[in-house]
């Protein structure tokens, strides 16, 4: 017979009360774990999306991120082939590196002149094979919505646009029919009122411009010298980019094509080198290696290194928002559990006052009484944690296989509702540790009160 055995029997003495307390803990822990799992899925999913698109680190000309978005020529990196070579050959970086690839951001006006429509776009010049490799990054094991770019192996004049761009440019062949408003058909002339030869001529005139030859568009951009330059491009796919604002502006093209458009026959440049690592946790050491490399070999180029967290402020904002919600919910549940267990233990102390007096008279020290009540709470905490984790895993499994989905604000398609409970060990360990800490905290005061009872008063207790 030891303290644990005695504590367990005391818990079983009033089964209904113990069960109610246990239930409160289980429900609390399940709620924390499910919300935590949902939060993890959103944060990990967001991180994966950004790392796939922008890499972990980017090397840019200083100030480009803040001021140069619409002026790639002023912030171009001319010596980028040498920089890429240095990055790819850096021995300290090699074990961490997935890929380093150049990119050129440019703005311009895309027009479908056969339909008489145009719109502003933000285009990305990229190496499709490299980007497709970046899309495969899924170190956190989330459901990835990334689609490979069909530009790989395609002609240099091919581009991919967002579905919003395609819709505006009336590239209806690339979209579902319901999603596209084709150009208004020219007025059909009434042949009966016209001479036959004029009517036939009119029909011939109508047939020409309303039947576009494939999905060709024109892209107008300003060159490095400020002159307009136009490229004829073949849109081979309209991709849903998820976020509507992006969907309405997006265009991806071959890097060489983008460079020709901006720099013409001059020296081609890029606006950034994207560096994708095997693990997000490798950002600090990788940044250190890159900083050394830039300091040693590219001191005059005025380059800076930015991580994906800085490049995508919405990621940090999402994290902070989810963390604050999780913290608030965890705090609320913690307080409820704290008072539930505290109340249970306080009631037990009152009910067992004579017993406490007897144990103390027999020679049990104050610390022994404290230990007994804390042990009872701890047993409740352990049982509640085990059942809570099992319950959360079970419900998470049901949710993850239910196919529930929702469309987040500003997004253009629905995401599956998933909760990462079993896959998130820090969440599991943190929540269980927190629950046990709350349990101990809630038992401490009643246990202390029990231990400090005056023996003769306790023995007199009716």
């Amino acid at each position, binding site marked *: 017979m030891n303290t644990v055995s*005695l504590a367990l029997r005391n818990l079983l003495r009033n089964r209904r009360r113990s069960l109610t307390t246990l239930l409160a803990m289980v429900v609390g822990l399940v709620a924390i774990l499910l919300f935590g799992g949902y939060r993890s899925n959103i944060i990990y999913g967001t991180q994966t999306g950004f790392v796939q698109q922008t890499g972990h680190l980017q090397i840019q000309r200083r100030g480009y991120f803040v001021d140069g978005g619409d002026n790639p020529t002023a912030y171009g990196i001319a010596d980028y082939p040498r920089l890429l070579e240095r990055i790819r050959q850096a021995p300290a970086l090699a074990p961490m590196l997935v890929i380093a690839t150049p990119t050129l951001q440019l703005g311009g006006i895309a027009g479908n002149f056969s339909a008489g429509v145009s719109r502003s776009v933000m285009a990305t010049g990229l190496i499709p094979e490299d980007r497709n490799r970046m899309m495969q990054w899924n170190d956190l094991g989330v459901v990835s919505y990334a689609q490979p770019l069909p530009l790989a192996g395609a002609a240099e004049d091919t581009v991919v646009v967002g579905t919003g761009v395609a819709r505006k440019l009336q590239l209806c062949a690339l979209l579902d029919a319901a999603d596209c408003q084709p150009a208004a058909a020219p007025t059909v002339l009434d042949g009966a009122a016209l001479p036959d030869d004029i009517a036939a001529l009119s029909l011939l005139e109508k047939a020409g411009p309303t039947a576009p030859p494939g999905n060709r568009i024109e892209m107008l951009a300003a060159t490095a010298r400020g002159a307009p330059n136009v490229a004829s491009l073949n849109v081979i796919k309209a991709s849903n980019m998820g976020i509507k604002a992006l969907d309405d502006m997006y265009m991806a093209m071959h890097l060489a094509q983008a460079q020709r458009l901006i720099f013409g026959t001059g020296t081609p440049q890029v606006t950034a080198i994207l560096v994708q690592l095997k693990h997000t946790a490798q950002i600090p050491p990788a940044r250190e290696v890159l900083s050394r490399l830039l300091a040693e070999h590219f001191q005059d180029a005025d380059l800076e290194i930015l991580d994906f967290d800085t490049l995508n402020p919405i990621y940090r904002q999402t994290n902070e928002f989810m963390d604050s919600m999780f913290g608030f919910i965890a705090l609320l549940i913690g307080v409820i559990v704290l008072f539930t267990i505290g109340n249970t233990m306080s009631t037990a102390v009152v009910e067992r006052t004579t017993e406490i007096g007897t144990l103390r*008279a027999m020679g049990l*020290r104050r610390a022994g009484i404290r230990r007994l009540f804390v042990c009872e709470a701890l047993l409740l905490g352990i049982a509640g944690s085990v059942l809570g984790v099992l319950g959360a895993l079970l419900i998470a499994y049901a949710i993850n296989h239910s196919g529930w989905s929702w469309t987040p604000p500003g997004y253009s398609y629905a995401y599956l509702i998933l909760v990462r409970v079993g896959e998130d060990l820090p969440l599991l360990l943190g929540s269980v540790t927190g629950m046990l800490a709350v349990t101990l905290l809630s038992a401490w005061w009643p246990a202390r009160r029990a231990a400090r009872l005056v023996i003769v008063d306790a023995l007199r207790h009716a």
Partner: protein
Amino acid sequence: MHPVSLRQVGKTYRLGSVDVPALSDITLDIRQGAFTVLAGPSGSGKTTLLNLIGCIDTPDQGEITVAGHQVQSMPDDALSDFRARHIGFIFQNFNLIPVLSARENVEYPLVLAGVAASERHRRVQALLDAVGLSDRQHNLPAQLSGGQRQRVAIARALATAPRLVLADEPTANLDSHTGADIITLMRRLQREQDVSFVFSSHDPQVHAEADEIIFIRDGRITGIEAGRDTTRGQA
């Protein structure tokens, strides 16, 4: 050596703003191996005196020596350990631990005293045999009669082979027949183990078995007499 000696012991309780003297100037020696009864009307100070002797309460004045140790200034933990080794308690309401079986109740003081498991087993079995409850040793207190519970309490009080057993009205909640049996049992074990018993009791049957009766009234000792006649010395 006396198992218990009190010198000019006093105890005052404070009720609101009023000091109520519970014991005054108590000087007393309890005889080794004696069956001593504290007798007196309700509120006379019997239980307070028993609590002081049992080291579960502290005096305001005077000195108390139990089993050769001055106890009034001992720290709480030391006093707990001292009680575990030297003093057994029998309560009016038995005060058994309800979640422990009869056997475990008897064993518990030995666990507190740090006695090895094999030795615990031997002593518990001997005590259960002595109180005639071997066949009920696995029963919980709720499954025992009042008399049986008090037998378990007696066995528990004697488990650590203490120098002193204190019993507060041990027969008050028993019928007279069961009470007589319990007194006989305590008397037998007291003689067999040469342990000093101190009772507070109104029960004439207890007084009849006493070696010594200490009469208390209004917190003062009014007389000490050899036992057998319970009416003598009472005002």
